[in-house]
Structures are given as structure tokens and as C-alpha cells.
């Protein structure tokens, strides 16, 4: 039984018809059309689907779309300001922290949640913060560097 719900994604209200069983991840990608958020494991283990709900990092694959009604959702597409990249995005580019790019949206949003809460994290705190985001390409070193650089420059 579909119902109409309103999701506020990157500041824009979106009205979508959803079944209760649809996850926020699927609705963001398939109904709203924002495919920056990735589907990895779909069970909350890999971190590829991280979005921010009211500023808090969550696995969007484990959130039912109906639960996110009227909440402020931030996807990776919401970070840049027009053509100007967010400092974390710039740092990822400058430090070679992106290879295939699949983990990147989740990584960057997790980093944003970290830096919003702790603007000057130690390396251990950065490692701890991204410990739930899997990357098969980079070996994490450049990602950690990039996050630290972004913290420095802010």
C-alpha cells in the first residue's frame, strides 16, 4: 500500500510515493534519482550508503523511507556549493584518496559527520570514525590524510 511522503533532500522537498518496505537508499537512488549514494552490501556493513539524517551519519539501506519522512537528509550531492567543492571533497581529490570512487560518497559524509562534531581529530580519531567504511582500493592511508588535511584547512 503506497503512501505519499515528503523527504527533504539536500534542502529540496521531494514528494514520493513509497511502500513501507522501501529503504531510504532505494528511494534516493531510484525515485529521486540521486545516484551518488551507493548500494554496497545493503545490510549496513560496508558504509557505502551513508547519508546524513539531521546531521547524523546512518546506513540508508537500513532506514525505511517512511521513517525518514520530513527529516533533513544530506547526500553527497548536497555537499558542493554550486561549482565549489566542499573542503573535504577537495582534500580527497588533492590527496589521491579516490580510486574507483565507490566508497567515496560514504567516506566523505562520514568524514563530514566527524569534522562537524570534532573539528580537530587526531589520526586515531579519524581511523576510528571511518572504521566502518570499507575501501577495497586505497588501503585507507590517503583517505586518512585527506580527512586530516580537510580538518587543518577548515
Amino acid at each position, binding site marked *: 500500500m503506497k503512501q505519499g511522503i515528503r523527504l527533504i533532500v539536500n534542502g529540496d522537498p521531494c514528494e514520493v510515493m513509497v511502500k*513501507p518496505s522501501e*529503504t531510504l537508499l532505494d528511494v534516493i537512488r531510484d525515485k529521486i534519482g540521486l545516484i551518488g549514494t551507493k548500494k554496497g552490501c545493503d545490510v549496513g556493513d560496508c558504509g557505502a550508503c551513508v547519508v546524513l539524517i539531521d546531521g547524523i551519519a546512518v546506513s540508508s539501506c537500513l532506514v525505511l523511507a517512511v521513517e525518514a519522512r520530513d527529516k533533513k537528509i544530506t547526500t553527497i550531492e548536497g555537499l558542493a556549493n554550486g561549482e565549489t567543492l566542499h573542503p573535504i571533497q577537495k582534500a580527497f581529490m588533492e590527496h589521491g584518496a579516490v580510486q574507483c570512487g565507490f566508497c567515496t560518497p560514504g567516506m566523505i559524509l562520514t568524514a563530514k559527520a566527524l569534522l562537524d562534531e570534532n573539528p580537530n581529530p587526531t589520526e586515531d580519531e579519524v581511523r576510528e570514525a571511518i572504521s566502518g567504511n570499507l575501501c577495497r582500493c586505497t588501503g585507507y592511508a590517503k583517505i586518512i590524510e585527506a580527512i586530516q588535511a580537510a580538518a587543518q584547512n577548515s
Partner: protein
Amino acid sequence: MKDFEYFEPVTLNEALSLLIRYRGRAKVVAGGTDLLVGMKQGIVNPAYLVNIKKIPGLNHIDYDEKEGFRIGALTTLHMVETSPETESKIGVLAEAAHKVGARRLRNVGTIGGNLCQDTKCLYYAKTYFWGWAPCYQGGGDVCYAVKGAKSCPAMAIAETAPALICLEARARIIGPKGERTVAIEDFFVSAGVTVLAEDEILTAIEIPNPPPHTAGVYLKYSKRGAIDFAIAGAAVVLTLQSGDGVCSNARIGLIGVARTPIRAKRAEGMMRGKKIESDLIDQVAKSASKEARPLGDTYASASYRRTMVEALVKRATTEALAVVTREATG
């Protein structure tokens, strides 16, 4: 995920009415980080889903010097981990909450949900996907992980349980017949199965105020440093008498070493009334390892877990002693 009817009750009574009306076909969802996984895997298929997150009064950490702690079942693990009161007074629970999953899972995962977690046996998880007949846990009459098992041998993996058991915590449960409390150590029946009836809801965890000079530690052994469930976990909480440093109370909570979280009662008894020294700790660890009844499963063998328990209890007791001695003299 199979379709279901979705409800967002705003009172406990509304939620209970739904669980009664749809008894056996309804499930409560809190954080969703456990239940939704099972629903996606096709092994848990409630026709009715009752989201209790809109019910006020279940998400809180209250502390009173006489009454102790009352932690609402919907309190997120992140809140449990970072609340100044839990950190300072029942640090072992904050430590245990911190070791669950990852930050983003702790942001939404609740302490109540952690206790009610379903088993993570890989065979159970894949039964529907592989098109096999359900195993015991899925309502069938076979076990694919352990040949010839007469019932589900999986182990409960509620990681906050050892710490809660050590803190003598009780679960507050509400149902159509009213409220009741159950000691956490009696809350578990087997992996994914608790004493909660189909029409009951866990509302709070109550923890008595720890006596002075009480502190503890929770150690977790897992293959990976993050995200992984524990292969074995040990919480040790010690109370020292002031003045002579003799141990007046000791509690050891273990997970991954039996079908439910257990206390190592004989090992605990060895420490009461004594001054704890390293020889005693070795004996305590050996006793705890013998009291463990681990089963081999897809993650580790029984003998490996038994060995791990001994090491974990030895380390946890040593560290707990250091923490409580510091706190008693500092």
C-alpha cells in the same frame, strides 16, 4: 523485503494493542539495524511492522544516587557510550556499547535492540536466499551449521549483555498483563530468543547504583577491529573493600561461549574475600574457561573460543583490577 503494513504508534498502549491484535505476525522495530537485515534476507517476514520510535519516554538515561540508572530501551548505543554518567559510574557499559558495530550503527541502534538481536549464523542468514527449508531458528526442524543438532546451537551475541550482567541490570518489560522485570542474565533463552512474549515490549534497563570502589572492563575478541561481532567477549567488574584492597565482590560476564551470555560463577567466587594477585587471576581465567560451554560455528571452533575466554578473562581481570585500584586510591 516482503511487503508489510506499517504502524507508528505514539503510546505504549497503542503499540501493545497492535502486538496483541496481530500476535505472532507483528514485529517491533527500533533502530532497525538488526531486524531490517533479517527482513531483507527473507528470513524474518512480519506482516505488520510496529515502529516504536515515536513513543515518548523510552529514550533517556536517568541516574539517581539511590535508585541507580534507568536507561530507556530506545536509548541509542551512542548515547549510552557518551553519557557522562555512564562513563563515570558504569564505564564498563560505556565501553561495551562503544565496541558494537560502527559509529553510524550506534547512532541508530538501541540498547534494547542490542539485547534482542537475532542470531548471525551464516546458514540461517542464507537459508531463504539458497532456497533451503528453514532451519530451527527460522521455524523449521533442521540445523545446517551443526549436523545432527537437536535445536538451534547458535550463540546470542548481545554485546552489552556481559557488562549489564556484571552490573546486576534488570530488564523492564511491559505487556497486556502489566509490567515485570527480569534480570538480564535470565533475559536470554537462546540466540535471538529472549523471554519477551509476542505481545511484550522491553521498555527500560535498570541498573542499581554500583557500590563504592567498583569498576570494570569489557574486552572483545573479533577477527576485525571494527564492525565484526564478537567471537568471544568478557566483562569483569570488581568491587574492592576500602582500606585493605580485598575484593568484596566480583562479577564475570561472558559472551560467545555458550548459547546465551553467562556468568562465570565459580571463577567469581574464587576472588571474593581475597586480595587479587596474578596467580589468582590465572586460576580465575582457567575456571572461567572451564565454565564456558562454547559451540563451534561458522566463525570459530569451540576449542578456540575456550582458549580465547581464558585469555580474555585473564586480561579483563587484570585491567579491571588496575582500574578499580586506581579509582579506590586516586
